[in-house]
């Protein structure tokens, strides 16, 4: 399928909007820095106040880049999941990735006392939480996939993912019961998501994962389009279903797993952006939607992050609070609209 002129125009407008939101996100924060200073700093000319320069280059800039990576990764994952499972409520975490991450991180933060000492020391390293989260996600993923292999239907994977999510939830609850207030607070804060905490090495790793994931996702566009007719027609068109499923699930795992490991679970972006993109571009052509998500995902997350910084006020809000305020009405509205054939 090809891009229509209208689509190209829309993509152009939203790319411009993305750059605008990026600039706004860099300009607004807890302390007000004049726009001129920001542009000076970004263009390498330094700033009149060294604190400002530090804040823009070492806090706001990495945060904005993280935002963009996370926005792209989660919205593309959401798109893939919604088409693969043919369910408008599917989102990147249905495979159990966030449950697995919670499991891993809870072991580090809440359950450290129960682990053998050498593992404890390993996990106390700066990247301890990232590694624990990735391992947890991987473990849960393997369980979901091996159970799903026995089941023929794609839909079954959804249910298995949900059930495993309940199990990990229960496990984390038990750990919470035996933890101190300090530990519980730490864990809760992790699960609220945090975009502002990555160093440049972490961002580099995230970008690499993003590129790999996007490449794989691109490979599956053709198959996703044929899935619009249903699995049987797709097979009759020569789509190798097994391979496609593996590619889509792998892409989702890399994209969502890496994001969750570094910034924690981010609510609703995976679910909402794919729908917003479909609404704006009014097409089911996955190539258009792919490009749309890559632009709309980061745009909206940048707006959410800017709001969460509460510029002008003395406090900040966790990112998940803002994305949920955005996402929840969208989910409700979706359910109301489900009668309509547009999805």
């Amino acid at each position, binding site marked *: 399928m090809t891009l229509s002129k209208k689509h190209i125009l829309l993509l152009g407008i939203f790319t411009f909007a993305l750059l605008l939101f990026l600039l706004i996100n860099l300009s607004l*924060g*807890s*302390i007000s820095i004049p726009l001129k200073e920001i542009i000076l700093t970004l263009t390498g000319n330094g700033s009149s106040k060294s*604190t400002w320069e*530090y*804040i823009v280059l*070492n*806090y*706001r800039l990495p*945060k904005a880049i993280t935002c963009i990576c996370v926005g792209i990764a989660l919205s593309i994952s959401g798109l893939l999941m919604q088409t693969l499972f043919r369910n408008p409520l599917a989102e990147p975490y249905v495979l159990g990735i966030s449950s697995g991450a919670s499991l891993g991180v809870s072991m580090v933060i809440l359950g450290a006392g129960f682990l053998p000492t050498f593992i404890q020391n390993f996990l106390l390293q*700066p990247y301890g939480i990232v590694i624990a989260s990735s391992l947890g996600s991987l473990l849960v993923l393997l369980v979901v996939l091996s159970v799903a292999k026995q089941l023929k239907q794609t839909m079954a994977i959804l249910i298995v993912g949900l059930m495993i999510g309940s199990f990990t939830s229960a496990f984390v609850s038990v750990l919470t019961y035996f933890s101190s207030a*300090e530990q519980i607070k*730490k864990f809760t*804060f992790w699960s609220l998501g*945090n975009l*502002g*905490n990555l*160093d440049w090495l972490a961002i580099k790793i995230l970008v690499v994962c993003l590129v790999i994931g996007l490449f794989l996702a691109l490979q599956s566009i053709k198959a996703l389009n044929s899935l619009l007719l249903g699995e049987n027609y797709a097979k009759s068109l020569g789509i190798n279903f097994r391979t496609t499923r593996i590619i889509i699930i792998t892409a989702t795992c890399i994209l969502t797993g890496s994001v969750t490991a570094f910034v924690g679970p981010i609510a609703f972006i995976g679910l909402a952006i794919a729908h917003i993109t479909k609404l704006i571009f009014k097409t089911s052509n996955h190539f258009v939607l792919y490009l749309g998500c890559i632009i709309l995902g980061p745009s909206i997350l940048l707006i959410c992050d800017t709001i969460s*910084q509460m510029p002008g006020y*003395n*406090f*900040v809000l966790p990112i998940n609070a803002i994305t949920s305020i955005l996402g929840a009405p969208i989910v409700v509205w979706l359910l109301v609209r489900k009668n309509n054939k547009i999805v």
Partner: protein
Amino acid sequence: MLIIKVLLFKTSFYFCDSLILVKMKKISLLVLVAIFILSCSEKSEQKKSTNHVANEIEYAKNFELYTYPNFKILKITKPWQQATTSLTYVLAKNLAIVPDSLKTEKIIQIPVQKTISTSTTHIPSYEMLGQVDALIGFPHLDYISSEKVRSRINSNLVKEVGESENLNTEVIIELSPDLIIGYGMDSSNKALDNLNKMGIAVIYNADWTEQTPLGKAEWIKFFGVLFDKNDLANSIFKEIVTEYDTLKNLAKTAKNKPDVFSGGLYQDTWYAPKGTSWGSIFIEDAHANYIWKNTTGDGSIAISIEQALNEAKNTPIWINPSSFESLADLKNNSKHNLEFDAYKTGEIYSFSMKKGQSGGSIYYELAPNRPDLVLKDLIKILHPELLPDYKLYFYEKLK
């Protein structure tokens, strides 16, 4: 009295309704004034009967102590942060002498000999009043640092009773204490309520709600009542007050008033105590300026790293960097910490490194009872020239 009041009210309204309004209004006004005066005197009559005894507590705001010939009354006016009512306890050596009018309140027989405490902040009072033998149970024994109590724990004379939010009812019933000294975060305390219903006396200690250094220390008098050692408690407290005031005056003689900041980063939010919190008041008393002293209320401030850097980067001294215990810890926590001048000069001080034998925090246990030592430490840190021979007790410089 009430019936007369009602009748007078009714008659005044009747007069207002009639056609000779103006004249009658005057009369009804007089009637109303008469009622007011009558009820005022009624109240003062009641006051006279019980209020001839004064509250003995001067600094602490959240409890009151009244001593009567045969009993004492402890009134906890703010048992928890959002409390709307107070809790009253009657303490007597001989329960038979308690007047009938007070029999509806909670009555505790003193002195208590077998007690369960639920907070390490109670332990110093036990020790200072020579009553460590009275402690038979505590939730999470590892938290206790006091050496005397630790040796009792090691001899199995103090039992583990669960978690403070989740007390082990069975163990406690078996220990059969005279009194449980508990604390509540809010009005629902199921475990303590259940134990009370089963016949075990419970008293709520609210020392943690006090926000002033001397106010917290004055709670030793609470324990003085329970152990019938009021005179000892009073004299200990008096010494602490004198020492504290002396130190405060000494601090005022310092030549400069340095800026101080506090708190630490978690992810990208900076948490620090508010200006009206107990810890922050010490800084002011030590003749220094806490940069966030204008924040009020309970809990901590949560500001973004941007704001923290903007406001504290050039502040010379960093006191209480959350729970971090070394410069390496701070570096691991976040590279933003390296931007603070205080990190570069190494002027960071914390009490987190001083721990008891089993890892409990000595500061959280002892400092509320010994504000004088805390103040002395801070003066030593902020104005070392004023106390040349003193060695820090709670605080240490971060390495």
